C-alpha cells in the first residue's frame, strides 16, 4: 500500500534529514488509513503525498503538524522526537490546510500582519511586496470576503513568501488557483527546496521540482 520512490537520480547525503516518521499507524472508524508508514524528508526535498480521495492525505499532514493526535508511531524533527522540540519545530513550520486561515473581515495586509507575527517580525513593506507577487496588487485594502476563492488562497500563499520557516506543509494548495497561479506556486516550491527548505504537499498535479519524492497512500 505504501511506496516510496525518489525521482532525483542521486540522493545528496550531505543534506540532513529534517523530518521523518517511523511506523506510523492511523485508523478512523475502524478503517485503517495507513500502517507501518515510514517516510523521511531531507532538506532540499519536496515530498508529494498522493492517494485517492479519502486515503488519508489530510489526516497525515495534520498528524505531522500536531493538529491530530489519534495515531501511533514516531515522528522526528532533525532526529529528535517532535514532542521534545515543539517550540523549535513550530517556529520552522508553515501549514496551510483546506481552510486557509484568512479572516474574512480583515484585509489581506491585516491578515498577514497577524499570522506572520505569530512566528516572526515582518515589516509592512514586505507584506505589500509579497501581496504584489501573488497577484493581489490593488486588493491590499479590500476586506477578504470580497475576494474570490482563488484570491483568498493567494493571500494565504503570500505567507510562504514572507516566512523564513524551513518546512512547508501544504494541503492541496493548487485547487483554486488558475493556470498562472499554479505555475507560480510550483516555482516557489522549487526555489524553497533549492534553498535548502523542505516541502510536504498533497496534490493531484504532477510537480516539476528538483528533488521530488512520492508517498502514495493508495
Amino acid at each position: 500500500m505504501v511506496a516510496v520512490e525518489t525521482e532525483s537520480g542521486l540522493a545528496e547525503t550531505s543534506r540532513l534529514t529534517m523530518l521523518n516518521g517511523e511506523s506510523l499507524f492511523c485508523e478512523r472508524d475502524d478503517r485503517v488509513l495507513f500502517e507501518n508508514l515510514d517516510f523521511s524528508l531531507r532538506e532540499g526535498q519536496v515530498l508529494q503525498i498522493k492517494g485517492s480521495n479519502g486515503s488519508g492525505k489530510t489526516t497525515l499532514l495534520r498528524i505531522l503538524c500536531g493538529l491530530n493526535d489519534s495515531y501511533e508511531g514516531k515522528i522526528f524533527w532533525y532526529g529528535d522526537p517532535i514532542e521534545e522540540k515543539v517550540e523549535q519545530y513550530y517556529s520552522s513550520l508553515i501549514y496551510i490546510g483546506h481552510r486557509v486561515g484568512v479572516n474574512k473581515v480583515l484585509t489581506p495586509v491585516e491578515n498577514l500582519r497577524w499570522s506572520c507575527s505569530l512566528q516572526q517580525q515582518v515589516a509592512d513593506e514586505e507584506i505589500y511586496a509579497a501581496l504584489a507577487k501573488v497577484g493581489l496588487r490593488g486588493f491590499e485594502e479590500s476586506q477578504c470576503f470580497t475576494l474570490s476563492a482563488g484570491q483568498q488562497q493567494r493571500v494565504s500563499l503570500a505567507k510562504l513568501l514572507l516566512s523564513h520557516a524551513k518546512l512547508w506543509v501544504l494541503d492541496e494548495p493548487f485547487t483554486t488557483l488558475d493556470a498562472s497561479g499554479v505555475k507560480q506556486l510550483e516555482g516557489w516550491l522549487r526555489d524553497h527546496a533549492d534553498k535548502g527548505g523542505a516541502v510536504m504537499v498533497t496534490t493531484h498535479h504532477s510537480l516539476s521540482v528538483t528533488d521530488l519524492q512520492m508517498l502514495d497512500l493508495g
Partner: protein
Amino acid sequence: MNQQATTGQAFRATLKRDLIIAYKRKNDLVNPFMFFLIVATLFPIGISPGPDRLGEIAAGVLWISALLASLLAMDNLYRSDYEDGSLEQLLLSPHPLYFLVLAKNISHWLVSGLPVVLVSPLIAYMLNLPDAAYAALFITLLLGTPVLSLLGSIGVALTVGLGSRGLILAVITLPLSVPVLIAGTLTVQETLNGASLGGYLAIMGAMLLAALTLAPLASSAALRISVN
C-alpha cells in the same frame, strides 16, 4: 527585521487583531450592550411589578442580563477563527498558547463586557435600583464580567467545532457561572443591608485572579481538543 517574534509581540499582535476585527464589525461593539438593555427591559414588561418590587429584583435582573449578554457575546470568540482556519494557525504558533488565548479573552471582554458594565447604572436607574446599591453593583459587575468571559471562553473552546453551538454553550457555561452570579448579587444585597463592601469584593477579586490564571489554560487545552 525578520527575527523571531517574542511572545509579547505575538500577544500584542493578537490583541490588536481582535480589536480591529471588532472595530470593523462595529456591531460587535454595540450589540452586547444593546442586548443587555433589551433583556433588562423584558423583565418589567414580563413581570410588570410596582416600582418598589422592581427595585427589589433590580440587582438580580441586571446580573442575569449581564450574564446572558456575556454568554451570547461569547459565541464569536473563536468561531470565525475556527471556521476560516485561523485557529489552526494559532495552535501552530511557537508561543505558549496561554498568552495568545489570554489576549483573545482580554480583547473580547474589552469589546463586549466593558460596555455592559459602563451602561449598567443607566439601566439600574430605569429598574429603580435603590441608590445605596449603585456602587456595589458597578464594582461587582466590573470584577465579575471578566470572570464570566474567562469561564465562557472555556465553554466556547469546547464547543467551537459543533454545528449548533449557541445552546450547548449555554448549557455548559451557565452552571459554571452561577457562583459568580451568587457572589455578585449577594454583595449588592448585603451592601443594601448595611454590610461593608470589602469582604465580598475580596472574594470576587480572588475569583477574578483564579480565573485569569487558570481559565486560559483550560481554554487552550479545550481548543487543542476541538481542532483535533
